[in-house]
């Protein structure tokens, strides 16, 4: 068992709570928030110590025993506060500090200053979200995509439509790929581990892990419509996220279109984005949409300031015949709802941030983490140690000792991808990509 870290989280918004919930079982977590009600509620809902106070002040940080902290995470909703929190913390401790910021300029300043502001690691929410949007757009129908082991392995979650060729097939029938593992299926409230005889039903969300190519092949096969080339990309709303997403697409050789209503903002982003066509209009204007042939777009990304507007744009795009809609949804509660009424993928900046921070804090144990279905399960990358319970054993033998809900999705051995089968023997220093039910996570981290 690892020695628990002492983690201080300042700001109990969605990001802070999500991180706290994730670390509470393995580490000593102290949460500081300015809202007394939130503190009270958190005391009983999470196994953490919640303290009421202003995290930018050294007094409050002292109350949280900052001197003994190993890690300080500043994730309030204000960029400035987060930077100040890290700075205050630095005066009292050598603990590692993480600041969450929204603005990329702050990140760039920090990167330029080599650890300025007393911040050791900075997570830029908007940039992360933009990167996620780009990753998702690359694959048709994918709900969530993450790459592991330097891009050798991909994990993707797909929704199975009624017209999908693998609907109503068993996993054994559907598995026609060399280096692809069917990890699990989310069906409503249930999570099923994919076994040979498991039947894939329409409406299921299926998680696959495998090589880059096989995941793309699989993605192409399960969607009957012609696959998206990603040529026609429309981004609605030049919010910071929209702007960053456009930049991401640009840097990967695409020429997206960006719709922005505000004249000044449109001009400003147009100046910064040479390969993007910036259109100044209201994206909910049907005439404009028709004029610009938005219906021919392969993907419409809505990143306007409000969740409701993003939903509206997505629904409009859908009605015009756009294949795929991605919406930025700030409110986590809405995300699921919006996905059911017609948004293909809802991207939540806060969830992305929490994921990134948790990933970072686990680096000594796991190398990479991806959370699925709002943290019902995780896909982690982990190195098999010589003395671990699974090393030197056949997978089918060692898996019997683990709880249900653990699937080894891929193995990287000396830079080569090994597709795990029941008879595969795990060797020391193999890198494993493992799908884990969140409830079984601690057991797995200990066991491997």
């Amino acid at each position: 068992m690892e020695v628990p870290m002492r983690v201080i989280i300042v700001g109990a918004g969605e990001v802070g709570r999500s991180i706290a919930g994730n670390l509470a079982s393995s580490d000593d977590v102290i949460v500081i928030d300015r809202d007394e009600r939130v503190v009270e509620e958190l005391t009983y809902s999470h196994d953490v110590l919640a303290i009421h106070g202003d995290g930018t002040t050294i007094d409050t940080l002292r109350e949280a025993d900052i001197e003994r902290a190993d890690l300080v995470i500043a994730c309030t909703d204000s960029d400035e506060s987060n930077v100040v929190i890290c700075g205050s913390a630095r005066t009292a401790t050598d603990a590692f500090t993480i600041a969450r910021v929204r603005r990329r300029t702050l990140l760039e300043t920090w990167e330029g200053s080599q650890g300025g502001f007393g911040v050791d690691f900075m997570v830029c929410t908007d940039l992360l979200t933009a990167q996620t949007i780009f990753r998702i757009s690359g694959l048709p129908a994918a709900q969530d995509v993450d790459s592991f082991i330097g891009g050798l392995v991909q994990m993707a979650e797909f929704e199975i439509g009624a017209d999908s060729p693998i609907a109503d097939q068993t996993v054994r029938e559907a598995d026609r790929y060399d280096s692809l593992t069917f990890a699990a299926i989310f069906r409503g409230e249930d999570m099923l581990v994919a076994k040979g005889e498991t039947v894939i039903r329409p409406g299921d969300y299926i998680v696959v892990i495998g090589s880059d190519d096989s995941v793309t092949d699989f993605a192409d096969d399960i969607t009957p419509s012609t696959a998206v080339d990603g040529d026609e990309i429309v981004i609605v709303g030049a919010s910071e996220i929209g702007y960053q997403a456009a930049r991401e697409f640009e840097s990967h050789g695409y020429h997206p279109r960006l719709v922005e209503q505000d004249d000044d903002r449109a001009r400003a982003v147009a100046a910064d984005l040479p390969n993007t066509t910036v259109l100044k209009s209201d994206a909910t204007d049907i005439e404009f949409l028709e004029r610009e042939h938005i219906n021919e777009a392969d993907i419409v990304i809505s990143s306007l300031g409000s969740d409701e507007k993003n939903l509206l744009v997505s629904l409009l795009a859908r009605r015009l015949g756009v294949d795929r809609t991605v919406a930025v949804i700030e409110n986590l509660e809405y995300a699921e709802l919006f996905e059911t009424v017609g948004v293909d993928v809802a991207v939540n900046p806060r969830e992305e941030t929490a994921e990134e921070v948790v990933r970072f804090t686990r680096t000594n144990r796991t190398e990479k983490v991806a959370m699925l279905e709002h943290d019902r399960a995780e896909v982690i990358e982990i190195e098999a140690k010589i003395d671990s319970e699974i090393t030197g054993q056949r997978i089918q033998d060692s898996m019997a000792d683990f709880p249900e809900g653990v699937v080894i999705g891929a193995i990287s051995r000396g830079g080569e991808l090994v597709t795990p089968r029941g008879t595969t023997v795990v060797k020391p220093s193999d890198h494993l990509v493992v799908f884990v039910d969140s409830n079984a996570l601690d057991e797995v981290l200990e066991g491997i």
Partner: protein
Amino acid sequence: MRPRHYLRVDWRAGLSLVGTLLAFLSIAFVVPIVVALVYGGDDLWVFVVSMVLTAGFGLALRRFDPEPSPGAREAFFVVAFTWLFAALFGAVPYLLAGNGTIAHPVNALFESMSGFTTTGATVMEDISFETHSRPIMMWRQLTQWLGGMGIIVLAVAILSQMAVGGAQLMKAEVPGPGISKLTPHIAETARVLWIAYAGFTVLLMVLLYTLHLLGFAPNMDLYNAVAHGFTTLPTGGFSPEARSIEAFSPVVQWLIIPFMFIAGVNFVLWWHVISGDPWAVLRDTEFRFYLGAVTVFSLLGTIFLFFDASLQTTETGQIGGNLERSLRYAAFQIASLTNSTGYANMDFDAWGNTAKALLLFVMFLGGSTGSTGGGIKILRWLVILKSLRREIFTTIHPDAVRPVRMNGKTLNEDAIRGIYAFTLLYLVLFFVGFLLLAADTSRATAFDPHTLDLLTASIATLGNIGPGFGVVGPMGGYNGFPMSSKLLMILYMWIGRLEIFPVLVLLTAAYWRS
């Protein structure tokens, strides 16, 4: 943790968790089993059977839901039923042993509930080893010790599965408004509380037995030292001696006074003291108020007793005019009744009216938040006093904005409102209890208690104090009441220990509806 969306209370998960806690609690029967083995196997089978029954029933309940994940709403259910079942199964040994008045099911439950809730009210007609075996008497003491710091706090400290939601359960169990976490993990906080609690218990046992070995306490043998250690720190009040602490020498009585006081203090503060911050207690407003109240009332009591020239009993001799005796009896009874312990070092029913009124008054105070004491609690009175002072101030200065502060921190108005609501409800229940007892006992012809006796019977059970005046006085008992009254008092002890709301919400339709 996967969220489960239940529209209704997930009673299956709740019962399953109650089962786990009950199975866990069955381990406690080891203590009377050991005592039985030491004393030649008296009633050994009684406890073995009780243990098997409790564990079996607990494990059976777990079948309702093998993997329970109870939420905030189920917490009330779990806590209330854990305590009810603990009392039910704690009564099994009394039934199986079949001796004396507690062989009757209602009496057995009364004695058991009185034990777990640390009330200390007894229906035993004959408290002696002639009627009841030593293991039975020790079990009676042990129930108080288990109930003192709380069954659920103990379970949270030991069972790892209680980490999630444990804080919610503890909130419903620990006396006072809310709990204070000391450490990030609730299990550690629970452990800290139990370590401080167990530490003081062992210390008292050792000191009592040392007094015996040194010859200062002839009848405080090992059995009695352990037995009284078990019931002092939880503010319990049971004693295997029919005449309670009066049976022991003045030295023992003096020693028990500070320990009763300790039991009424927030154990979080003791933890700070143990871990090297001795001034933590003195900085705490509630502690200072509690210390002040006990001191002032003890001195007042001393004056009342000292100047009551006629006060004497056959056991104590002349008290009036004797300073040591006046101080000892007054300080002991004030310390005992303020925080709901309920020990007696003399029959205080013999006191004059002024002194008795003082005792009745302190019965309404209670211990501190996070202590093992029952009652309304010092903190609540303190908040009420402070907010009343504010009311008066704002009457003079209508525009003044004055937050109510406690330990330097501002209390929010919702918390203050909650405290008023609790206190008012407590007083209403007290009067309703008095009324019901009066109506019920008037049916019984052979039993004729005074009005004051009934009044104290109501507060002594609701406040988990134990003895009152008259028939329910320290040397009397509750056996004379009709069975229906006893059932009411069982209910009162139960809701009193859990501070009313966790039980009361179960009685509302809204709790069970979606």
